């Protein structure tokens, strides 16, 4: 098969050198998206319900980080350094964790409509949180949620594993079963607990960042960072996995091992995020999807972008939740309201392939 010389030259050398206009534009956007969390962070710390003018805020920050001297009430420090900083950073961390783990699960399951909650993580976490809210008050909510999200994941994984193999269909089905089981357990707790506790549980399950503070950030950061780092380092392997298990085996990949590593890393990150922020819906679905629409499915770019854009995205959405109405709206409600139409759109336009 011989091709005309002209046609042959068209795509390949140009793309290889990355000089075509299209790829040049993409590279620029790629860099911009990678650095997006920085401007978003700076923007977000100006927002809040406490009356503090931008000028004052800048002065306070300058006096902290430069030689500039400015006297101000110490409450400003609390507002800026102990409320807004940890809140914005926590939102970013949670956004990054959910997006990255969403992208990872989508890659493993070869399905763009999968979320980090597919294996029952969210229902496990909700159950754990409810348990500590109303049954075992000695157990901190975050710890309860974290432990039970992992219990749910482990349960799904073990149920799906037969003869050393874990097929994706079995995983999805066992995830559905696990979700149902923990959903039922949660209902038992809600049914037998008092009104106020039910309210707290519901509030928790909607996902909220209003109790953010530094210790929360520092507690969950190592797990989220470790999970994201592992996924980042192995990101290209997701390309191999995403083509299908047989294809991956054919090129010598230890599919079960990598799947276990990816599921563990993604679950750790997402569980740690859910434990501190509650169940924030659809972020793990929307963010990877938006990025895939712009930058294509290559996980070498998708994973770092999920980390940075996921962080920026949730910080922005949380800005709405914390500063528009003066009261806290669970950020999960906003992400769901934003995400549901988007999800329906995907449902109608995406071809379902890859479900073995």
């Amino acid at each position, binding site marked *: 098969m011989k091709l005309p010389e002209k046609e042959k030259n068209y795509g390949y050398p140009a793309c290889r050198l990355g000089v075509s206009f299209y790829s040049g534009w993409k590279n620029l956007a790629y860099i911009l998206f990678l650095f997006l969390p920085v401007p978003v962070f700076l923007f977000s710390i100006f927002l809040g319900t406490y009356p503090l003018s931008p000028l004052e805020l800048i002065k306070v920050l300058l006096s902290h980080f430069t030689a500039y001297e400015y006297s101000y009430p110490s409450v400003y420090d*609390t507002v800026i350094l102990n409320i*807004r900083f940890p809140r914005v950073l926590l939102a970013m961390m949670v956004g990054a964790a959910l997006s990255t783990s969403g992208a990872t699960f989508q890659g493993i399951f070869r399905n763009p409509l999968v979320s980090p909650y597919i294996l029952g993580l969210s229902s496990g976490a909700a159950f754990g949180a409810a348990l500590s809210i109303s049954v075992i008050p000695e157990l901190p909510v975050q710890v309860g949620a974290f432990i039970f999200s992992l219990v749910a994941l482990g349960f799904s994984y073990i149920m799906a594993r037969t003869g050393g193999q874990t097929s994706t269909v079995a995983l999805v089905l066992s995830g559905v079963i696990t979700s149902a089981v923990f959903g039922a357990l949660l209902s038992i707790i809600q049914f037998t607990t008092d009104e*106020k506790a039910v*309210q707290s549980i519901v509030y928790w399950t909607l996902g909220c960042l*209003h109790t953010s*503070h530094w210790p929360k950030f520092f507690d969950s950061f190592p797990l989220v960072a470790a999970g994201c780092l592992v996924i980042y380092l192995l990101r290209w392997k997701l390309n191999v996995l995403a083509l299908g298990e047989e294809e991956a085996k054919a090129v010598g990949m230890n599919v079960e091992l990598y799947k276990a590593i990816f599921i563990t890393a993604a679950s750790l990150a997402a569980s740690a995020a859910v434990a501190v922020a509650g169940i924030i819906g659809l972020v793990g679905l929307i963010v990877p999807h938006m990025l895939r629409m712009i930058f294509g499915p290559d996980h070498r770019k998708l994973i770092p972008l999920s980390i940075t854009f996921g962080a920026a995205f949730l910080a922005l959405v949380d800005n709405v939740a914390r500063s528009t109405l003066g009261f806290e709206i669970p950020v999960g409600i906003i992400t769901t309201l934003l995400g549901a139409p988007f999800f329906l759109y995907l*449902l109608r336009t995406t071809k379902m392939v890859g479900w073995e």
Partner: protein
Amino acid sequence: MNTKTKALFTAIILLLSVFLSGCVDNSAGDNSTGDNSTGDNSAGDNSTGDNSAGDNSTGDNSAGDNSAGDNSTGDNSTGDNSAGDNNSAGDNSTENEKTDKITVSDDIGREITVPYPCERTVFLVENAMNSMYAVGGADEISGIGAVWYEDTKAPFFRAIDPKYDEKRLSKGSKQPNTETIAKADPQLVFLWASDWGSEDIKAIEENLKVPVYGVYIDSLDDLQRQMKTLSKLIGKEERGEEVIEIMDKSMEKVTDVTGTLSTNEKPTVYWMWGDVYGTAGLNSTASDLIERAGGVNVLSAWTEETKNVEHPTMNLEALLALNPDVIYMWNNENLDPINITSGDTVDGIDFSTWSEISAVKNGRVYEISDPFVYDFHSPRLPLSMMHVAKDLHPDKFADLNLTQEVDQYYVEVYGVHYPGFEPI
């Protein structure tokens, strides 16, 4: 496919729940806007001379109890309100007396008709049961459903009702099923209900063919209206009036003092529910309580519409901006005022970041010490008001001995001493 549909369903359910919660909040707000205006009853009687200042609320005061002989009739707001509410009920009852039936409207405004006097009632909601006991309806209670933290409450109920244990239809916080309720052969079932279409109400009315009294309280006046209706149902209006008078008198001990306070004497109060950032909106019983006990709900300084929601959720930044003078906690097992003032970390909340709030700075963080005795959704509401008032104005209420007040109130209303529940 499974995940697809499941995710779709989840999305739909979440959306629905958002809308539903919005609806519930609205209706709660609508219900209560009318009552809110009555919150401030200036009785204009400055009886108690303010004595020695600077005593904490712990209550080792000298016995300054001048309680019974205080019959200022200036409690018009509550009295008028409840009388007006009950007019229709009263008319109906006189009409129906011949046929031994009575028609009253329940807390959510549904008309219910039951045999008169009503002799067998089942309570699936505990705070209304407290009202029934208070108006002398112990014998008319034939079945009792869920009781939260029963271990702590059972001794009291046993003391005021020897047949309490026989009447229990379930254990602890579980609700009995319809068949068990049927065994108690009720003429009327009491159920917590925030709206007319409640499935629970329908289930009992249609399956047992027994009318249901929908219980709903979101202001202090609601409680007395409810108690009046209950006493009417069992034909013990007199005792009902008596108890309401006792309540009013006890509350006057507080409101007579707080009614004279000028606005700048009243501290701003942040009410803290168990979820810490959850507070009492302006249209809520707790907010009424704060106002009458001589405080100002700190939310009244807020500009956002959401302040009228029954249970709004704040964040720390808003709290700092509002800067309340007092933080008043509902009883919280995990959290004590000292945790807040000393900046501990409890349940994932680092209270050291609260140190800029003036309530924390000045050590003015208080807690309802006993969620049962001071349950302000029960006839013990006046005790709860004293508890709060004493903390808000320690100097003005230095003479008020809470221990004695509680004992006396228990004696007058329930005929037992507190603590110990010795009969008189």
